[in-house]
């Protein structure tokens, strides 16, 4: 595969499963971190289409698209928390939340730039937006505000989800729009939460990646069998892998999993998914703009294993009833955004779109 694949590998567990992070975090489980308090999401979107209970977050992936210059883009994977709905694909939901492109904030490009140069150098590309967003603040205040915002962003990234930001930068004025502690909605069901770190998949193709089997291959063994020339094994031809319980597709799937046995999800924007079974339905076209959907990421079975292990063994726990091998997520190839930003451009510049999900199950029969 020419596309490079990023793997989401498990990092540390969250100290509290309901703790807040920011929308740049990639995590599994926990509470969804919406970018703004008022997202304008209809309550039906956050409810299971089969039974109506509130959906809980499985994965939140911060997925900017560098090619299209979209920095603020997050994908939320939600599932119904009742075990009865678990096997059915309609109980899953994927939301893609991204900032509409016509309004750009200063935070988007400010995390790496040192903004200590002053307003002229940094605000040139975003001049018109600054005028829209912060019309009252004069130059001195803007300088400190922007600097503090940039520092906040950098601190949020480096910290471990604890709110240490304020203590690190005592110089920053308090009126920065930092993530507020939102009122936690205790009625949302929550799965155990852990954070993700990324790694690129180094797959050497055939032969160079060691399998996870602990068998040592002795050269002597090879020599012994090679020297045994009493019988000639004749007429042998190439044979594809075959096992009684598993077909070729699954064996290839398992081989890639064995290279990184803890991978929780695979990310490859526009790439090819790793199939576990040969049957795959058509993802269809985007509901908003009608353009075709393409593959973006897929959740892998170690994720459901980790969530199952972290559960407390109660019968009401959804991940214990999951039997899927992989969950493939397709998103709109054009990254369309709902253009309902009329009126006040400051408040509703986030678009929410529902994307397609395909589940590959582990067939027992």
């Amino acid at each position, binding site marked *: 595969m020419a596309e490079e694949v990023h793997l989401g590998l498990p990092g540390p567990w969250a100290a509290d499963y309901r703790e807040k992070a920011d929308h740049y975090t*990639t995590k599994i489980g926990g509470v969804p971190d919406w970018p703004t308090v008022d997202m304008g999401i209809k309550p039906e979107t956050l409810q299971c289409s089969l039974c109506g209970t509130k959906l809980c977050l499985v994965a939140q992936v911060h997925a900017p698209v560098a090619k299209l210059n979209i920095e603020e883009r997050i994908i939320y994977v939600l599932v119904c928390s009742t075990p009865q709905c678990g096997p059915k694909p309609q109980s899953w939901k994927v939301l893609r939340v991204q900032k509409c492109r016509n309004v750009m904030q200063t935070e988007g490009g400010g995390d790496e730039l040192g903004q200590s140069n002053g307003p002229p150098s940094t605000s040139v590309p975003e001049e018109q937006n600054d005028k829209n967003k912060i019309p009252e603040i004069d130059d001195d205040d803007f300088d400190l505000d922007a600097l503090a915002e940039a520092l906040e962003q950098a601190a949020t990234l480096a910290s471990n989800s604890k709110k240490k930001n304020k203590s690190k930068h005592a110089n920053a004025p308090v009126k920065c729009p930092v993530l507020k502690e939102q009122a936690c909605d205790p009625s949302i069901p929550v799965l155990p939460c852990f954070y993700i*770190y990324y790694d690129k998949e180094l797959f050497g193709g055939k032969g160079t990646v060691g399998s996870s089997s*602990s068998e040592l291959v002795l050269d002597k063994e090879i020599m012994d069998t090679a020297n045994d020339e*009493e019988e000639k*094994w004749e007429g*042998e031809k190439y044979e594809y892998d075959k096992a009684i319980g598993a077909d070729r597709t699954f064996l290839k799937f398992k081989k890639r999993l064995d290279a990184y046995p*803890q991978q929780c999800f695979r990310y490859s924007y526009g790439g090819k998914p790793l199939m576990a079974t040969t049957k795959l339905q058509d993802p269809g076209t985007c509901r908003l703009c009608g353009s075709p959907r393409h593959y973006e990421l897929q959740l892998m079975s170690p994720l459901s294993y980790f969530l199952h292990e972290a559960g407390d063994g109660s019968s009401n726990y959804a991940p214990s009833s999951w039997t899927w091998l992989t969950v493939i997520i397709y998103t709109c190839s054009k990254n369309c955004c709902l253009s309902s930003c009329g009126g006040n451009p400051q408040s509703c510049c986030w678009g929410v779109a529902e994307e397609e999900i395909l589940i590959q199950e582990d067939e027992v029969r």
Partner: protein
Amino acid sequence: MADRGGQRGGDRGGFGRGFGRGGRGDRGGRRGGRRGGRQQEEEKWVPVTKLGRLVKEGRINKIEEIYLHSLPVKEHQIVEQLVPGLKDEVMKITPVQKQTRAGQRTRFKAFVVVGDCDGHVGLGVKCAKEVATAIRGAIILAKLSVVPVRRGYWGNKIGQPHTVPCKVTGKCGSVTVRMVPAPRGSGIVAARVPKKVLQFAGIDDVFTSSRGSTKTLGNFVKATFDCLMKTYGFLTPEFWTETKYVKTPFQEFTDLLAKPTKGLLIDAPTETVEA
């Protein structure tokens, strides 16, 4: 994307850092500081299938429970855990060639037989560009195809079963192998190559007879394996009584309705359901 995710996730201590828990006896605690205990040498098995998860937790103790319900085994670690005394042996590595425009492309085909010499045997065949890869892959495939072998008596039912229960025959390609029960002390009367398979299966005495082009030893070995697979497929008078069906492991260890398997009546379970 990579930067932010990496910093958020903490230090990259390697795989499994912070995932030492789970399946280590403290599953009662939801969270906690217990994170260590990760082995460096052998990577911990993370099960992919539901059956693998049940085996890893220890809900399934014997591989016979899997055979009883004909569940497909998709992970070789399942067999490694359930059949502890499994030994493997490479029977042959032959080069196979393919003619291409740029000459010949040689790959190596490895035949590996695994077994515990007590009723379980598996055969794996793998082609790969390197010998080591072929052997490794063949061992995994052999473990995936471990089957039970039924043994019986030739005459008096004294002591442990030592031979095949009846005359069975297996076929692969043009080779047919027929196995006939033999009295105690006869030993395995077979050619060198299928004799190895029968030794790994745990059969002590048997008479064999083969037909077809047994020069093609690949087919010969597969025919023997096919013959062993059929020992449990043969209906003998012991099986004439009505079968008492039991719940599959998936139904037993979940409290809700699992996907129903064909033709299985949910009857009185023989094992208690764990919470």
